[in-house]
């Protein structure tokens, strides 16, 4: 591992100034991605600015939204009473991710910025990786692609965004709060990420030195039905093969509002807007759910090793829509 300067920041402005001033500086929060990739030789910052003591932990109810400080840990957010009551799908996604030890370390800001689990990206001995070395190619498309993306992916890059939490957050229209050297800005989480098919090496709209300070999550309307289903190779402590975060508002037998996020399939946490439109105005039922699921994956780009995900993602989504709406199989 490359040697680095370690600096502890106590003010947000100091942290932003320190990282902005050096192209090779990086923030250190929970460290579960950052230190892991430094050990692997994928990342090699010359300076780490420890932000874990910045006053950015904790939640605050602001009207019909929950403001979550970026340094709130996954475990802390899962234990939040407003999350349990008004955002149960967020709680489910949090507790189905990683292990308790990792959830005690990993922060909400860091979770959104976690890097792909693609084993070819994470091994610097692999010469082809458009994410690590732009223009070098993609070893994953020729390798073992089981854990890779089928949406927002192509022969340039099939890296998956592995966050569970981000799946309900894109569905809920969460807003990312960002502090940069010249001020604050906000961006919808679903607009925050770029597609690997278009820009493998640039994953989001943050510029160097910008820091996520918080995430604002609009609460679900009272009476909304919601849930998160995660399908994986092990029952616990495993990344998703596919997952679905859904929220429905149903009254008088008609779906009035539908929110759908898909995990395990996209190079970014996937918001299925077309599938939502397919549901709104329909009565809840298996036919409508299947129609929506087909629309959700219609643009899939597959390899022989990832094609199964197209079917699995549809079944996962249909099952979760049935579960939350109480429609029998």
């Amino acid at each position: 591992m490359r040697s680095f300067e370690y600096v502890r920041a106590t003010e947000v402005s100091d942290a932003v100034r320190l990282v902005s001033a050096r192209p090779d500086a990086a923030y250190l929060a929970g460290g579960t991605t950052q230190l892991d990739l430094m050990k692997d030789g994928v990342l090699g910052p010359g300076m780490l600015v420890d932000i874990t003591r910045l006053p950015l932990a904790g939640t605050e109810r602001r009207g019909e939204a929950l403001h979550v400080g970026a340094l709130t840990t996954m475990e802390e957010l899962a234990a939040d009473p407003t999350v349990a009551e008004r955002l149960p799908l967020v709680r489910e996604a949090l507790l189905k991710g990683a292990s308790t030890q990792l959830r005690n370390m990993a922060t909400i800001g860091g979770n959104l910025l976690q890097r792909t689990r693609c084993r070819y990206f994470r091994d610097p001995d692999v010469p082809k990786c458009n994410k690590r070395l732009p223009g070098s190619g993609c070893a994953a498309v020729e390798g073992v692609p089981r854990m890779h993306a089928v949406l927002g992916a192509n022969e340039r890059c099939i890296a998956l965004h592995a966050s569970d939490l981000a799946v309900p957050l894109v569905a809920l229209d969460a807003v990312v709060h960002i502090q940069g050297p010249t001020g604050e800005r906000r961006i919808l989480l679903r607009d925050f990420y770029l597609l690997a098919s278009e820009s493998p090496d640039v994953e989001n709209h943050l510029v160097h030195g910008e820091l996520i300070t918080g995430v604002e999550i609009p609460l679900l309307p009272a009476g909304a039905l919601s849930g998160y289903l995660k399908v994986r190779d092990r029952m616990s402590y495993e990344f998703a093969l596919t997952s679905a975060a859904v929220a429905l508002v149903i009254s008088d037998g008609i779906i009035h509002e539908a929110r759908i996020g898909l995990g395990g399939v996209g190079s970014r946490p996937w918001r299925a807007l077309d599938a939502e439109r397919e549901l709104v105005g329909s009565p809840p039922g298996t036919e409508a759910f299947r129609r929506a699921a087909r629309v959700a994956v219609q643009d899939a780009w597959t390899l022989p090793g990832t094609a199964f995900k197209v079917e699995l993602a549809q079944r996962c989504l249909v099952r979760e829509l049935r579960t939350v709406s109480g429609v029998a199989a």
Partner: protein
Amino acid sequence: MRADISRGTTVPEVFETVTELTVNGRPSVLSLDTRVTLLDALRDHLGLVGTKKGCDQGACGACTVHVNGKRVLSCLTLAAQCEGRAVTTIEGVARAGAPHPVQEAFVARDGFQCGFCTPGQIMSAIALIDEERAGTDDEIREFMSGNLCRCGAYPNMVAAIREVVSEGNGNAVI
């Protein structure tokens, strides 16, 4: 890393930091390479080798310790990050010479085979009980899933944890 100056290459700078660590209630001041993890500081600098290095990349749970009362992975934590925070390791859970009730139960229930993952399992189990997540066997399995055991001693570990909870030692303070 030491480069060959005679060939004109530069010597990479190695950064150090002075860190005051409080482990099991004892403070120590260490001058460490900034890259040193909490795990390596415990094992190589403080001689506390009970905490084990399994995968060293946050996958196996063998290095589990408590920082400010929460279970975390010491292999993905920098030692420098822990200044001013209370670190507890397996060496710090016994009281007045008596093993912690979770340690006693692991022995009584044969909750290990080779023993390598055991310190991490016990640190995780103590936290699990404190988190009130040991209500059922399924809950124990789910919230212990971050600690792998290659010998497969899981059933006896679940039995040991269940025994501690049912005997009311669940809130045994470290």
